[in-house]
C-alpha cells in the first residue's frame, strides 16, 4: 500500500477525497487551514463536480461554509467543512440545526481545537459542541487514524443521517507522518433530497425531528461502544490504576510505557458519545482512574457529574493534570507518577523572548504609525482591534490596540463604546476579516452615523494564515459605500511612508468628524508580493 507523508490536516483532506468528496468548504484559521488547502491543491485541476470533481473555493466565513456544505449534502453529495475551533462559534447556528434536520449526502465537520492557544484567543473544546448538537464525534490520535476516521465517517454520516464531527487538535493537525492510503471511492451522484420537510425547520417539523434525534442517541451510543476507535484493554495483573486516554493523550501514555513498563488497564477513546459501557467496565476493574484528555475535562466531568463517581477519578478537575494548557508527554508522565527522565541542564545565560512581529516593510506598520500619532495627539483615543496579523500592533513599539475579542468585534465594539460617549473611537480590521464579519455591523453604524473612524487595513490577502485569497480584493470601497457609508467620508489611501503626511492630514480630519468615517489604507502584504 502507498505510504505518503501527510500532516494530520492533510490526512483528513485526503480521507475525504478518497471517500468520494464533492465539496470542501472553509474559512482560513490555524490549525485547520491546511485541510482545505490540501483539498484544493489535490483537486483544482480535476473535472467539475458534475463529472466527479470537487468544488473547493474559500467561503466568506464559517457560517457560509457550513451552509454551502449543507446544500451540497441536500443535493445528495458528500461535503467536508473545516475550520478552527472558534470558527465553529461563527457556524454554530447551522451546525446546531443540522443535527435536527439531519443530512442526505455525508457531511463531515472538522473543528480543529488549539489547546495551549498557539494561535488563538481561547481553548474551547469542540467535543462539547458535538455533545450539544447531539451528534457523533471522532478524535484521531495519528495521521493514519485521521485518514481512516474521515473515510469511514462518511459511511456513518449517511447511515445515521447525521453530520459527524472530527475533533482535531493543533498537535496532530500540524504533525507530519507516513499514512497508508486506500483507493478512491466514486463520488455520490446528484440526488436531491426527497425529504424537504425535514430540511424545513418550522416548529411542527422541528419538534418531530428533535424527538427523532433524541431517539438516535441510543444508536449513536451503540455505535460508539462497539466501534474500533474505542478500545478497552484490561490488565488483570494491575488493579490499582486504570487510564482513560482520548486522542493524542493516548500517544503520551504509550510513550511513557514504551520502555517495557507494564501498561495498566486502559480505555482509549477516539469516538463519542463517551462509550458508557466501556467506562463502567474499566472503573469496575480498577481502584482508581486517571483521565487524560487535551482540552476541557469533558470525559472526566461527565464521569464525575454532579454527585461523584463510585471510585476516585483523577484528571484536570482534581489537579492531577493542570486545569489548562496543552498536554505533552512530560505532563502525562508526572500524572502517571513516574520519575522525570535525566536530561541536560540549560547554561545560565539571558535568553531574550522572541515574540512574533510584523514583517519588515509590512503595510500595517505605516498605518499603525499614523494611529500612534493620533493617539499621541489625542491621548483619550481608544482603538478596537480585530483578528489578523495586525493584532500584533498590540506589541511594542506600536501598542496601538486596546481590544481583540473575535472576528468583526472591532467595528461592533467601537460602536458600543461610541454610543457610551467615548471619543475619539477608532477601530482596525483587515480586509478579509471585514468580509468575514465586519460588513454586518458596518450597516448599522452607517444607519446610525456612529461617530467613529473605521480603518480597513487592505493588504489584499488573508495574511496571518499564509496568504489565502481575500474576497475584498478590488471591491472593498464599493462594498463600504454600498453598505450606506457617506462616500465623502470613505478614503482609500496608499499605505506607504511617502504618503505619510497627506494620509495623516486626512485621518486627523476624519477622527475629528462627529460621524462615521471609513479609511482604507491599501498596499499588498509584503509576503504575498514577494511570492509573485
Amino acid at each position: 500500500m502507498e505510504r505518503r507523508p501527510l500532516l494530520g490536516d492533510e490526512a483528513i483532506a485526503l480521507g475525504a477525497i478518497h471517500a468520494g468528496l464533492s465539496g470542501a468548504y472553509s474559512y482560513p484559521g490555524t490549525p485547520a487551514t491546511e485541510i482545505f488547502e490540501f483539498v484544493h491543491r489535490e483537486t483544482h485541476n480535476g473535472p467539475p463536480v458534475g463529472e466527479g470533481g470537487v468544488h473547493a473555493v474559500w467561503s466568506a466565513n464559517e457560517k457560509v461554509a457550513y451552509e454551502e456544505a449543507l446544500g451540497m449534502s441536500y443535493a445528495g453529495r458528500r461535503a467536508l467543512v473545516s475550520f478552527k475551533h472558534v470558527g465553529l462559534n461563527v457556524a454554530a447556528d447551522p451546525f446546531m440545526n443540522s443535527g435536527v434536520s439531519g443530512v442526505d449526502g455525508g457531511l463531515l465537520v472538522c473543528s480543529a481545537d488549539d489547546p495551549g492557544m498557539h494561535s488563538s484567543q481561547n481553548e474551547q473544546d469542540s467535543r462539547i459542541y458535538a455533545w450539544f448538537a447531539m451528534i457523533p464525534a471522532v478524535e484521531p490520535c495519528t495521521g493514519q487514524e485521521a485518514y481512516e476516521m474521515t473515510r469511514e465517517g462518511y459511511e456513518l454520516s449517511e447511515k445515521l443521517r447525521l453530520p459527524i464531527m472530527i475533533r482535531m487538535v493543533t498537535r496532530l493537525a500540524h504533525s507530519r507522518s507516513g499514512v497508508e492510503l486506500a483507493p478512491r471511492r466514486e463520488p455520490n451522484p446528484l440526488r436531491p433530497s426527497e425529504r424537504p420537510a425535514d430540511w424545513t425547520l418550522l416548529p411542527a417539523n422541528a419538534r418531530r425531528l428533535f424527538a427523532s434525534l433524541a431517539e438516535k442517541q441510543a444508536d449513536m451510543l451503540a455505535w460508539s461502544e462497539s466501534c474500533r476507535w474505542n478500545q478497552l484493554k484490561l490488565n488483570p495483573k494491575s488493579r490499582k490504576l486504570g487510564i482513560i486516554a482520548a486522542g493524542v493523550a493516548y500517544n503520551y501514555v504509550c510513550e511513557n510505557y514504551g520502555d517495557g513498563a507494564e501498561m495498566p488497564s486502559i480505555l482509549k477513546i477516539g469516538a463519542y458519545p463517551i462509550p458508557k459501557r466501556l467506562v463502567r467496565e474499566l472503573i469496575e476493574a480498577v481502584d482508581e482512574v486517571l483521565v487524560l484528555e487535551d482540552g476541557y475535562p469533558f470525559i472526566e466531568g461527565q464521569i464525575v457529574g454532579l454527585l461523584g463517581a463510585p471510585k476516585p477519578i483523577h484528571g484536570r478537575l482534581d489537579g492531577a493534570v493542570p486545569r489548562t494548557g496543552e498536554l505533552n508527554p512530560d505532563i502525562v508522565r508526572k500524572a502517571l507518577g513516574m520519575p522525570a527522565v535525566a536530561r541536560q541542564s540549560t547554561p545560565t545565560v539571558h535568553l531574550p523572548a522572541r515574540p512574533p512581529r510584523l514583517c519588515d516593510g509590512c503595510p500595517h506598520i505605516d498605518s499603525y504609525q499614523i494611529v500612534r500619532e493620533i493617539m499621541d495627539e489625542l491621548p483619550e483615543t481608544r482603538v478596537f482591534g480585530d483578528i489578523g496579523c495586525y493584532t500584533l500592533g498590540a506589541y511594542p513599539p506600536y501598542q496601538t490596540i486596546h481590544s481583540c475579542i473575535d472576528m468583526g468585534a472591532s467595528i461592533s465594539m467601537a460602536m458600543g463604546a461610541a454610543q457610551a460617549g467615548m471619543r475619539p473611537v477608532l477601530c482596525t480590521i483587515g480586509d478579509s476579516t471585514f468580509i468575514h464579519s465586519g460588513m454586518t455591523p458596518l450597516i448599522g453604524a452607517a444607519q446610525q452615523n456612529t461617530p467613529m473612524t473605521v480603518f480597513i487595513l487592505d493588504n489584499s490577502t488573508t495574511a496571518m494564515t499564509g496568504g489565502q485569497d481575500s474576497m475584498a480584493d478590488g471591491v472593498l470601497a464599493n462594498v463600504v459605500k454600498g453598505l450606506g457609508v457617506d462616500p465623502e467620508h470613505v478614503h482609500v489611501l496608499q499605505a506607504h511612508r511617502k504618503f505619510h503626511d497627506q494620509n495623516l492630514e486626512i485621518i486627523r480630519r476624519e477622527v475629528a468628524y462627529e460621524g462615521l468615517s471609513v479609511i482604507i489604507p491599501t498596499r499588498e502584504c509584503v509576503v504575498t508580493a514577494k511570492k509573485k
Partner: protein
Amino acid sequence: METNIILAGVGGQGIVSISFVIDMAAIWQGLKFKQAEVHGMSQRGGAVISHLRVSDSTIHSDLVPKGRGTLVLAIEPVESLRYVDFLSPSGAVVSSTDPYVNVPDYPEVDSVLDAIATLPNHTLVPADKLARQAGSGRAQNMVLLGAGSPFLGLQEELLERGIREAFAAKGEKIQKTNVDAFRAGKAAGAAYRPCLAAGITSRQARALIARLIGGVLAPDAVPAWKDVFGQPVGPAVLAALTSDAVGKANGSADVARQIAASAPSAGDQLPSLLFKA
C-alpha cells in the same frame, strides 16, 4: 534506532525545508517518522520549533519527551539554548554561530556561543559564511543539516537526494547551492569536533573554521593548529582570524607548521601566511 530532533530557529529561516529533507530520507530508508511543525501566528519572525522523530519502530508521541532528545539542530544560537533540557545527557547541540537579531535585548553573541560551548556534546558552524560561499545566504538551513547529519542515523546520499527533491521546482542552480551548503556544513562540523577533542578552545576553533574554504580542515592539520594556538603567537593568530581583514585562511598542516616555526617574527608576516589573497 531512534533519533529525536528538536529543530529550532526564527520564523522564515527554513526549518520546514530541513524537516522535509529528513522526512523524505527516513521514508526512503524504510523508517517511520513524526514531525510536529509550527504554523500560524508564531511564524512571523518569532521563535519557532519543530519536533522530529525518526525510528525503526512505532513512534507514539508527536512531541519529544524531555530527556529523550538526541539532537538540537538550531539555525540560530540563542534558539539552540531554549531547548537544551529536551536532550538526554549524551544528546548533541548543533548550532549556527550567526545571530538573528530582531529583539532589542539580544545578548552579546560570544557569551551565547561560549554558553553553548559548555555543553558536553556540541558543534558550532559559521552557517552564514558557508551558505554565502555555496551561493546563497538563504541556504544556512542546509549548512546546519550537513553539520548535524552525523547525528541523524540517515544515509548521506538519501539526505542529498532529499535536498534535490526539496528544491526541484527551483532548478538545478538552487539545488546545487543547497547541496554544496549541506556538504560545507558537514565539513565544518567534521572540523570543529576534532579541534575540541585535540584541546583547541571553542573560540579558537570557531575563528579558524569561519575562515576555511567550504569549512574543510584536513585531519592532519588539527594537531598542527593545536600547536599554533599553544605557542606565544597563538593570541595573535586568533586576533588575525577574528579581525576584519578580508581573506580565507589556508588551514593546511603546512601553514600551521610554518606559523609555529617562525613564531617570533610572525606578527608582521602573519596575515600573508594566514590568508590567501
